[in-house]
């Protein structure tokens, strides 16, 4: 087959990103111009996947089930492009066009059925084409898949149709300005503004917020089946009150993003299309995104505008990096979960770590800028979060930098981030907030170690035997590393101390004292620790260990309380290698009837590990 020199076979250019733009992106910049480049590449990628999917289904007509083959959908999209190229671009840019075509491609390649029969997933191409044609004002008729009584028209909304079966077929009929979705039992006419609700119709709400010259326009998508992370999900309709809360919070958050990070705000206008609302999670701000749904962020109802602003920045960093990774591999595939990060409770593989570093680089930038704006009550909260995330991101970035799995481009990205992040390490933050940030970081790291690291058995035996022999100290034991974590945690974890400290920093000691019993997993010892009553906290953790000698949070809490009272070996051991202390404690308990004093044992081990 000729490829070059034959005019009937065009020579394609490939998508590329100049190093200058790559470096801007690495430093957290690049604005809208770089995002537009990523978007153009995503458009080509999705078109290729669409072409591959149509090819495959055309060869295997049985995959279409009761629906027509994808050819009429492609032809309808051709008409859309001829009438309104911008509409075709919008539909191709729709985040869930990417996740749908990726998901369905996997099903076809692996020969498996997904959440629905394969024809429902394949047939979504008709829904995509129909929505495009409605937007373009074309007259047409088409058939669509219906899942649990819902016929989705992506970017527009969902028609509810009674149906006796989980999966069925509906018809859509449109003339300019009017469209109807129907089956044998009912017909739903789309409202003039499809974003609004109507009889049998749920519209996808649009949120448009402005700050200065920057306008962010997104869909609040609680309907599209491909808006989730892994598998299609049914609609989860927000009520109007929650939708209004989202609108209000987004307006306030957008103001913060524009004022704090104008370059990222500019980029976000070009690259963020859709928010998927999720229920609130007390004391947490869960959020997520997938590389296949460029432009979409899944976000739990935020507690306040700064939380939403930080989360928007966080997820947008993921979105940008996901787009970049479709252009250039940044690491060699390595699924081993071998890294500690300050933002996840479990060990992470290199891909997740790189994503997290870039996301929390953005989060750090946001809190840094917010802290510099002197907003009164927000100052201390922003400074605390800045101090915490600059340290956590830097710690992980330094480990990542030397990892052999990074490609040349990956290392260049890490270098770009480091060039900015390094300069922030020495910026002044009030000393008490630095201490709080260091305490939260030490707590999390020790908690990760005690649950995911398994100490070397001969070392544990040496310690145990030395302790039981009554030796004053051991010959020097090398400090254990944090390499090779296990995937299974040894015990539960609690974030209560971090929650308490955040509450005190963001609100007040009074607020913390009133709310602490309602904080998940918080104990009296945690409250004493967060209040600065370290001796009382130590006593409390000793009691907790007397009642449950394996509790990770109590061991680490004891280490924190001891370290806060001085710099002795016990506190150091419990924060630097708590897994070793607990393992020795366990072994001694198994051999002798009397449990050793946790502090005495930690002190003894701390003096032996050098």
């Amino acid at each position: 087959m000729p490829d070059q020199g034959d005019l009937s076979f065009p020579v394609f250019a490939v998508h590329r990103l100049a190093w200058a733009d790559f470096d801007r992106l690495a430093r957290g910049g690049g604005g809208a111009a770089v995002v537009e480049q990523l978007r153009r590449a995503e458009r080509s990628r999705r078109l290729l996947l669409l072409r591959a999917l149509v090819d495959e289904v055309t060869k295997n007509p049985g995959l279409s089930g009761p629906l027509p083959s994808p050819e009429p959908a492609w032809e309808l999209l051709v008409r859309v492009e001829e009438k309104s190229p911008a509409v075709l671009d919008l539909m191709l840019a729709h985040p869930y066009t990417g996740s749908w075509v990726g998901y369905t491609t996997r099903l076809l390649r692996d020969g498996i059925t997904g959440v629905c029969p394969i024809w429902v997933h394949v047939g979504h191409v008709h829904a995509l084409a129909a929505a495009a044609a409605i937007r373009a004002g074309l007259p047409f008729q088409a058939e669509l898949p219906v899942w649990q009584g819902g016929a989705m028209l992506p970017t527009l909304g969902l028609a509810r149709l009674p149906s006796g079966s989980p999966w069925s077929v509906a018809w859509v009929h449109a003339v300019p300005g009017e469209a109807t979705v129907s089956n044998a039992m009912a017909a739903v006419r789309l409202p003039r503004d499809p974003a609004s609700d109507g009889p049998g119709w749920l519209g996808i709400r649009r949120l448009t917020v402005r700050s200065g010259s920057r306008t962010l326009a997104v869909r609040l998508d609680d309907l599209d089946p491909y808006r989730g992370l892994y598998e299609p999900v049914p609609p989860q309709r927000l009520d109007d009150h929650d939708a209004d809360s989202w609108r209000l919070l987004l307006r306030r958050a957008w103001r913060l993003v524009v004022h704090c990070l104008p370059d990222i705000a500019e980029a976000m206008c070009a690259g963020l299309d859709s928010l998927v609302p999720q229920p609130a999670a007390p004391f947490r701000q869960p959020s997520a995104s997938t590389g296949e749904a460029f432009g979409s962020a899944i976000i739990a109802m935020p507690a306040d505008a700064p939380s939403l602003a930080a989360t928007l920045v966080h997820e947008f960093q993921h979105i940008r990096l996901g787009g970049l990774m479709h252009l250039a591999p940044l690491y060699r595939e390595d699924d081993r979960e071998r890294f500690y990060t300050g933002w996840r409770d479990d060990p992470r593989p290199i891909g997740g770590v790189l994503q997290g570093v870039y996301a929390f680089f953005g989060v750090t930038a946001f809190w840094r800028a917010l802290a510099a704006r002197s907003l009164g009550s927000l100052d201390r909260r922003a400074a605390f979060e800045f101090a915490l995330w600059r340290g956590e991101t830097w710690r992980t970035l330094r480990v990542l930098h030397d990892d052999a799995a990074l490609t040349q481009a990956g290392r260049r990205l890490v270098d770009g981030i480091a060039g900015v992040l390094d300069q922030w390490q020495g910026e002044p933050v009030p000393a008490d907030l630095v201490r709080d940030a260091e305490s939260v970081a030490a707590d999390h790291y020790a908690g990760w170690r005690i649950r995911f690291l398994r100490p070397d058995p001969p070392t544990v035996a040496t310690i145990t035997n030395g302790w039981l022999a009554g030796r004053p100290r051991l010959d020097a034991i090398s400090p254990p590393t944090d390499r090779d974590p296990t995937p299974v945690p040894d015990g539960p974890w609690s974030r209560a101390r971090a929650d308490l400290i955040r509450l005190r920093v963001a609100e007040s000691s009074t607020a913390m004292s009133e709310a602490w019993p309602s904080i998940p997993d918080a104990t009296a010892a945690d409250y004493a620790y967060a209040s600065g009553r370290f001796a009382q906290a130590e006593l409390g953790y000793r009691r907790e260990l007397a009642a449950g000698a394996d509790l990770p949070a109590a061991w680490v809490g004891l280490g924190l309380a001891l370290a806060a009272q001085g710099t002795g070996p016990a506190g150091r051991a419990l924060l630097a290698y708590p897994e070793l202390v607990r393992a020795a404690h366990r072994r001694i308990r198994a051999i002798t009837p009397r449990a050793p004093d946790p502090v005495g044992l930690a002190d003894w081990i701390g003096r032996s590990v050098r």
Partner: protein
Amino acid sequence: MDSFPMVIEPGVDSPLVDLGAVPLAVLRELDSAALRRSLGHVVEQTRYVLVSSESSTTRRIG
């Protein structure tokens, strides 16, 4: 007529062909080794979906 050589800034080259100027009607019929390579690349790439999910902590609600 003299022509200036095109200067291409150094950067990352993707295996992804640029379809920005290819109409859908043309794309449906196109066939070439470059297109097939790129199709194979994107289909293969769907094996690796990077999902990012981090629960950052926040202030108290309510």
